[in-house]
């Protein structure tokens, strides 16, 4: 084990920013390797929310008194901050939702129902999380819409051989920028351009991308981008939909209620301007502010540095696990660290992932076991469940080493 300082991140200092990482589990220091499910939160994020509640808590956009004004401005400053973080040209393009799942649903309910009709086609990929499948299946079931699937190859990359045929006549291409099961990075720009050339609109599920790589919506070339706060050092209860302003302007509203209206009479209502048109009711004010603080935290560290750290740590993990566990371990997904994120789904002998995770937990090592909300992909991989260790900026080589050591215990226990 060597200290992982070569790529510029002081991981020891970063770990200290995250209160949970100093706790222990079953008398072992915690080794948190489930950031693809949810990340831990730095103290500055928790403090920003507590400070909000203790000093300016008031409902937004409606009060003339001082703290109500401060609350509104803090929330809108977080919106500007988020826009800046993903390179959005216009702050009004950032809509706050509960999570990435709701962001996809918002698009399906509004843009989807306004633009997709009987006989239309939507193209997805076999890599998708349920959040980017089920909303489209619901829409497809309501109308006679065809779902087409870009296949994955044996290494977990998208197989683009048939892309042109799949996109032919399609109205929407919706795909994930990084797989939460295999870590695969998909060619977002290439796919966006191809879809646009075929006349399709493009939605990118960046839930696993925005937390880990520098993001620039202009460079990605998509029309909609969705992601979720809790996976990027932010709190639960807040997600983001980014979309080009013209698209948002043209879309019908989503939920109805306060704040999304300009005028209401008994006869009907007129909608507010974007982005508020899509934010009915009292927003997740504290959570939005917390997400703004998370973005500050990540920006300070630098997303290039985060990515560099994760590439090198992923390389270390792939090497270490393969060397130490040989044939017992099968790690799914791309073998080349530069073309993937730090999400390692693996099988360990014939030990069921639930049992792997149980033994690891006893050593304080937290990994996920299950279908990772990607059942169609699991079916294609021919498994019901995998174990998944996922890395983030606060992980280092010692975490990987402890995972590796705990796997030895599992091997002993189940005598493989």
């Amino acid at each position, binding site marked *: 084990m060597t200290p992982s300082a070569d790529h510029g991140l002081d991981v020891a200092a970063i770990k200290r920013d995250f209160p949970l990482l100093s706790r222990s589990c079953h008398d072992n220091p915690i080794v948190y390797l489930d950031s693809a499910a949810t990340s831990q939160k730095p103290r500055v994020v928790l403090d920003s929310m507590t400070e909000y509640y203790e000093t300016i808590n008031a409902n937004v956009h409606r009060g*003339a008194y001082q703290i109500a004004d401060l609350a509104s*401005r803090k929330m809108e*400053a977080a919106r500007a901050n988020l826009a800046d973080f993903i390179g959005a040209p*216009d*702050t009004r393009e950032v809509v706050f939702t509960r999570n990435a799942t709701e962001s996809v649903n918002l698009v399906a309910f509004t843009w989807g129902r306004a633009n997709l009709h009987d006989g239309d086609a939507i193209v997805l990929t076999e890599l998708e999380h349920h959040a980017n499948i089920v909303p489209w299946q619901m829409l497809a079931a309501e109308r006679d819409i065809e779902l087409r699937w870009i296949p994955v190859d044996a290494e977990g990359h998208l197989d683009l051989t048939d892309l042109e045929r799949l996109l032919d006549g399609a109205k929407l291409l919706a795909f994930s920028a990084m797989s939460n099961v295999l870590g695969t990075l998909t060619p977002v720009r290439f796919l966006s351009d191809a879809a646009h050339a075929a006349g399709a609109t493009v939605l990118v599920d960046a839930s696993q991308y925005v937390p880990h790589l520098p993001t620039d919506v202009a460079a990605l070339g998509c029309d909609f981008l969705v992601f979720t706060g809790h996976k990027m050092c932010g709190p639960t209860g807040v997600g983001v939909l980014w979309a080009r302003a013209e698209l948002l302007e043209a879309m019908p509203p989503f939920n109805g209620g306060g704040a999304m209206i*300009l*005028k209401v009479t008994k006869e009907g209502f007129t909608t507010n301007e974007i982005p508020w048109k899509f934010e009915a009711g009292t927003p997740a004010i504290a959570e939005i502010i917390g997400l703004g603080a998370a973005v500050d935290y990540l920006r300070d560290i630098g997303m290039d540095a985060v990515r560099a750290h994760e590439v090198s740590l992923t390389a270390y993990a792939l090497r270490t696990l393969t060397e130490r566990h040989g044939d017992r371990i099968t790690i799914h997904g791309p073998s080349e660290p530069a073309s993937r994120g730090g999400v390692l789904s693996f099988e360990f002998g014939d030990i069921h992932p639930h049992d792997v995770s149980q033994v690891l937990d006893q050593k304080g090592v937290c990994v996920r076991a299950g279908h990772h909300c990607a059942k169609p992909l699991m079916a294609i991989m021919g498994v019901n469940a995998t174990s998944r260790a996922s890395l983030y900026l606060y992980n280092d080589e010692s975490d990987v080493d402890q995972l590796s050591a705990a796997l030895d215990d599992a091997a002993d226990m189940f005598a493989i």
Partner: protein
Amino acid sequence: MPGLEDLYREIILDHYRNPRNRGELETPPAHRAEGFNPLCGDEVVVYVDVDDDGVIQDIRIGGQGCSISQSSASMMSAAVKGKTVEEARALTRAFKAMMSIHENELGGDPDEPVEIPEGVTLGDLEALRGVVKFPVRIKCATLSWNTLSSGLDAVSV
């Protein structure tokens, strides 16, 4: 009252108590535009009558609102009456520039210097400068101006 002197200047309260150009104009020839402040429910109606030479012959203000929105509308009406559409637009830009430091929360760089177009003088309207210290009220002050703009847009189409 201490702390509010900058907001409630005497001239503002005067325009609020004695609004200029209040009323309606026949449409056509005048044009009618409505504006809402969704946050507080204020509404303003601007009637504007522009002649063939592009001069604002007459203007009237209707609707309901707080002292800031009402006095701003009143001063605006006095300031643009008899001016050309182009002059009114320049004044609108100047007024919004005076306000915009804080208004533009959504986009725009808050540190960018705000320029009042050359050759435009705000006159009495300067009295509303204090509103920028009360950011929630900026929308009250700009409501009638935005409404005038949309009215003028419709006229010049």
